[in-house]
């Protein structure tokens, strides 16, 4: 839950009185053009950034007061791929599993399972520095979710992926929801949000400009898709903001 969240970087307002709530087990999409404030919101929810104003709660815990408890609940897939190039794909995943203190045998099983789902089993023992961009993004996602978190923050998880990889990630995210996990997904791919999300929040210039299930928003604004919803609300295409 976010209440009146604001964040300023010197003279730039990244978030402006942002408030919304995500239910347990919900797949929530945070949409908006680049620079809208999506990643800033996630960074505050992860405890990486301190808000200038307002409060944020994750799993009922105040992010600023109980960061340790929050970190025990969440899994994060960052927007920019962050993998150790000198470690193999498997070692990268197992490292982050170990940081969440997953016992050895469970970690091995979970790693194998996720690598297989992401189509990385064959390349798992190659150094990640030699992976293609798409493979890096997939391993990036697995690293954030190997510990089976209750709440997953996925920051543009499919950006730059080929259609096949993107479909594999979509299936994976859908499976997470099926397991009762809460997923907060940021994206500027409107079709991704329409396909996956129970509800979406559209933000622009740090402000929440629409909130609701994709179907309802499209109906409310007489739009064929979420892209059109954004145009109706802002007068711009979402990619123009990029």
């Amino acid at each position, binding site marked *: 839950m976010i209440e009146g969240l604001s964040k300023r970087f010197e003279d730039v307002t990244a978030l402006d009185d942002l408030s919304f709530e995500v239910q347990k087990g919900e797949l929530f999409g945070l949409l908006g053009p680049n620079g809208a404030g999506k990643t800033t919101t996630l960074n505050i929810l*992860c*405890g*990486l950034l301190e808000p200038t104003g307002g409060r944020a709660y994750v799993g009922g815990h105040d992010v600023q007061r109980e960061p*340790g408890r929050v*970190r*025990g609940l*969440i899994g*994060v897939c*960052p927007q*920019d791929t*962050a*993998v*150790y190039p*000198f*470690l193999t794909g498997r*070692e990268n995943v*197992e*490292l*982050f599993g*170990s*940081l*969440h*203190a997953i016992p050895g045998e469970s970690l091995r099983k979970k790693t194998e399972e996720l690598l297989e789902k992401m189509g990385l089993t064959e390349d798992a023992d190659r*150094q990640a520095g030699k992976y293609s961009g798409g493979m890096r993004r997939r391993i990036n996602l697995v*690293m*954030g979710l190997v510990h089976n978190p209750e709440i997953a923050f996925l920051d543009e998880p499919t950006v730059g992926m080929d259609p096949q990889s993107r479909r594999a990630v979509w299936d994976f995210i859908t499976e997470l929801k099926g397991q009762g996990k809460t997923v907060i997904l940021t994206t500027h791919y409107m079709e991704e949000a329409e396909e996956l999300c129970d509800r979406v929040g559209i933000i622009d210039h740090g402000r929440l400009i629409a909130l609701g299930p994709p179907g309802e928003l499209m109906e409310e604004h007489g739009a064929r898709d979420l892209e059109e919803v954004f145009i109706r609300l802002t007068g711009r295409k979402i990619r123009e903001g990029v």
Partner: protein
Amino acid sequence: MELRRVIALAKKDLKKTVREPAALFMTLLFPLIMALAFGVAFGGIGGVEVAGFDIGVVSLGDPQDPWAIQFVEAIHGTGVLWVKGYEDNKTAQGDLSQGRLSAVLVIPGDFGEGCSSYLAAPSEPSLWVNTSIRLYLDSGSMMVTQAIPHLVNNALLVTIHGELPQAMPSPIHLESPSLVEARNVSTFDYMAPGLFPFAAIFLTMLVAQSFVYERQTGLLRRILVTPTTSAEFMLAQVLSNMVVALAQVALVFAGAFLVGYRPYVDASVLAFSFLIVSAFSLCCIGFGLVTATIAKSDGVATGISFFFIMPQMLLGTFVPMGGTQLGRIAAQFMPSHYVTDALTSLLLRGAAITSPMILFDAAVVLVSGILILIVGVALFGRYGKT
């Protein structure tokens, strides 16, 4: 504190050292190559051409005794014997056995009486006070064993008779020289102890580069959103870099040994060397963290790290910049100086680990290491994470 996290992070850092060519070269190959190259360049041949012999003189009587002073001047007057005064025979013997001296001469306490008794009654041997001068020689040098007894005896006769007589009886007798097996100390023997901290100094640069890289690529942020605590993260850094420091010590020893370096080493000396270099690695990690706090990119980190590396290297290792008065004063503030000092005493002079100076050096390195590390962790934690 979850040990599994610490081990996982430390293993990750060690894998980086082994798998990344630049890190592998700087941490492990460079010290080995350096030890081999310096050993070959300054090893068996030695760095100084000797045109005379150093002779240690121990006066057991009054050092102001004019006869003893005259004798020492006569020795000096030979032109090829360079006198070094010692207060006790043990110290002089130590230097002789380490090859710092070619000979040790022990002037007895009644030397002056013997000379005076001869002068008072040159033709009355029954009234002379007879005494003996002991001479210890480096058995490994034929030149020394052949030349020095003769030169000393001549100096003795000049002292007593005022000139070199043909054959005159004398109350002072030069004993048959005792031969001492001295080590052949080369320039490399003096340099080698400084190679150990020299190798570890570069950890500063590698730690700084590693932290900056993790911050730039988002890996640090990624770790920060796991339950890993700062203490676990830093402990892993300390452990992995200590392992690297230990590997460096082993490689420098091995490389130096291959080119003929044979210091005074037993298990306790080895263990101490590992420990003091490990303690020194704490300083390097601390300096690395300070560097990483300031630097915004890998390249800048490399540059800034040399502000810490160069003084440590020039004033605290084998590089002879501490030869000036100012250099010696500045060296007192370099942790590397204390590592080199302790290792020099141990490896070159064969000092005991429990000797006060060694313990003092170790304490300085450990305390400064902990303090610098604390400063580094605090600065990086406050300003360096983002």
